[in-house]
């Protein structure tokens, strides 16, 4: 069974009865290899649709994930259970519990994975019986930029839980020693390093993710070294190479938390020579308004804007056809092509538009932007939305939808012997943001009609 992967977290969602007979098929050796190749931050088994489980089933599953953890440092465990299932797992493992448990998948993603946008706005309450665990959970959340409420006792918890968006009451932190860990904060990619940083970093570092982030347009890459005990020449060389390679994209590589106890002056100088910016702490870095402004302003797409090429135009029919087919299958509406022109991105700023971009690279490099009128977006993504959804859910659905279209295009191009990979999608809350991302860029703009509403596809380099 393949997990659903989002924000560097893989979730397996088995259904029904989980026992020794079927557990080896839920996470098979092939799935273990797949997880190892993905270099995920976390891999969890959701118990949401599990009706019954026994110790043999649970043990077999977690042993498979622990193999992944041992090789890649991935944080592993279970999520999406009720109090009863939580207590059953605790009683099954008593003193041998060495994996993590999270009330829900959404709570797991507070602790693991790269998406911690709007961290300070998230309303989180923590109350678990073990005070040691309660403190650990709270500390970990603080470290990732959240500001949880910690309930002092049960009555305090009951009084405050009604206001919380995330209620952490049956969670347990197992081993959280993955290094480097990665998350996105303030439009910056933050890698957290711990312990000794040596040649191992080259093996553990997720280069595909890093390159994706470059292609999508992130400009600031931060290595949080506050928990680094020592960095040697091999570790620093690796980061210096990232800095040199990133120069082409105009990115800044920053290291925070280095001092004379964990790095020699010579290595520090070498890093600075390679263009790495060194800050005493993360706090100092985030106080540098100039740098943070640069991270925000240029974060949408790659800096080198050029006109769309003939090569890209040649795949435009495949891109339009794949996009239209996907939209028609998932929305039930017919899409009609109105016009295709090579021009700068032209959009109506007052039309209430939602947009997303996805980059692709390989035999061809480019960016595809999809712009929907909000009303048709809601209809088109209904299959991905629950009945009650927020604006944030709608944007997430747009991202998912764009990802599906990106994969479909990759499949169709593959049939024509053109091999491309796609980046993670990026959503834009305002028309200005997407227009800004394409400043001075010419591309192929296809305007389509879906049920009387506008949809724009814009392909650029």
């Amino acid at each position, binding site marked *: 069974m393949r997990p*659903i992967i989002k924000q560097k977290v893989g979730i397996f969602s088995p259904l029904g009865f989980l026992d020794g007979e079927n557990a080896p*098929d839920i996470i098979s050796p092939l799935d273990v290899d797949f997880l190892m190749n993905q270099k995920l931050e976390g891999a969890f088994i*959701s118990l949401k649709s*599990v*009706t019954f489980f026994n110790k043999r089933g649970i043990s077999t599953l977690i042993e498979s994930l622990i193999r992944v953890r041992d090789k890649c440092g991935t944080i592993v465990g279970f999520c999406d259970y009720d109090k009863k299932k939580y207590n059953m797992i605790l009683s099954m493992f008593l003193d041998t519990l060495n994996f993590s448990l999270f009330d829900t998948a959404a709570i797991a993603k507070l602790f693991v994975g790269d998406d911690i946008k709007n961290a300070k706005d998230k309303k989180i309450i923590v109350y678990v019986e073990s005070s040691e665990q309660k403190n650990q959970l709270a500390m970990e959340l603080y470290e990732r930029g959240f500001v949880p409420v910690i309930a002092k006792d049960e009555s305090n918890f009951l009084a405050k839980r009604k206001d919380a968006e995330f209620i952490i009451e049956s969670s347990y932190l197992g081993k959280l020693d993955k290094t480097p860990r990665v998350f996105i904060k303030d439009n910056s990619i933050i890698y957290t390093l711990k312990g000794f940083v040596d040649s191992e970093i080259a093996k553990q570092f997720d280069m595909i993710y890093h390159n994706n982030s470059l292609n999508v347009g992130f400009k600031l890459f931060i290595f949080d070294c506050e928990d680094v005990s020592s960095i040697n020449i091999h570790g620093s060389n690796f980061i210096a190479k990232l800095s040199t390679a990133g120069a082409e994209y105009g990115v800044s590589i920053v290291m925070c938390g280095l001092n004379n106890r964990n790095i020699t002056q010579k290595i520090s100088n070498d890093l600075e020579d390679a263009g790495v910016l060194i800050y005493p702490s993360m706090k100092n870095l985030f106080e540098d308004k100039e740098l943070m402004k640069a991270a925000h302003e240029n974060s949408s797409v790659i800096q080198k804007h050029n006109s769309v090429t003939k090569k890209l135009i040649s795949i435009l029919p495949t891109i339009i056809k794949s996009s239209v087919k996907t939209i028609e299958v998932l929305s039930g509406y017919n899409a009609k092509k109105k016009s295709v022109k090579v021009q700068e991105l032209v959009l109506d700023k007052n039309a209430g538009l939602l947009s997303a971009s996805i980059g692709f690279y390989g035999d061809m490099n480019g960016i595809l932007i999809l712009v929907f009128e909000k009303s048709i977006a809601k209809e088109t993504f209904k299959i991905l939305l629950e009945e009650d959804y927020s604006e944030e859910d709608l944007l997430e659905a747009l991202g*998912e939808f764009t990802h*599906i279209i990106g994969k479909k295009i990759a499949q169709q191009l593959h049939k024509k012997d053109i091999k491309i990979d796609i980046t993670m999608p990026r959503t834009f809350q305002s028309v200005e943001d997407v227009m800004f991302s394409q400043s001075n860029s010419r591309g192929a703009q296809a305007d389509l009609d879906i049920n009387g509403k506008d949809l724009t596809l814009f392909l650029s380099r």
Partner: protein
Amino acid sequence: MLSQTTINDYVASIPAIPKIVKRCSEALEAGDLLYAADIANEDRALLYYLQNIVNKPIFGFKNEIKNTRQIFGIFGISKAKQLLYGYYLLLILPKKWDVFDFSTNKFQNFQARLIFNWGKIVKSLGKDNSEIIPSISIIPASLIVCEMLFADINSTVKLLRQTKQLSYEKILFKMTGRTFFDISSMIAQKWDFSQDIVDFILKVGGADGADEVIEITYFRLLLIYEMSRPMMIQSGLNDFFDFESEFDDEVTNHFYEIIKEV
């Protein structure tokens, strides 16, 4: 995109039950096992199906059973009806499975497991005389319906399922407002099953009042259990239905004890 029209067209394309099979069914309804067996013997396809399914390892017969009188004699009226209803589904079975990594053989293994385990359950519950019990053989029609409806849009649906955890049933419902049980009940109506059976199918799928009947709770558990067995996981059918996973602990544990009884 699937629509109600796609479903109606599909149901309309389902063939009627052959006359000889219908006669066999009527003989079983009348309780005449021997006559039913003799009719079954006249239809080579039906005979081959019966021989094939009853000799599946799950039934545990040491020697091969070939004769229809022997088959119906050993199985009794209720299970003979289940076998016959199971044969109905062969009429709509796809020649080639594209959506799932499934086959006619795997489908029949699934049917055999349902019949065998359901037999253990109804015996344990003391419900083996209920008229609607044999109709469970119609439920696997859902798998066939899914295979047929999704075949044309499979590649897009696969991408959708890689992106979001959605069961096939949820996707069908979001696209058409119908569940697989609704469509199975339409098929049952087309094949002239009684209204009780049509209602039973709908109740298994979660229609109102489903929880009032203990057999339905146990049958849902059986379906959930069977869908989570290795063959179904390997075939990509594990998260096919969209059942609630919460059941009374006592009932779930009792169910598991029955299933695991040798």
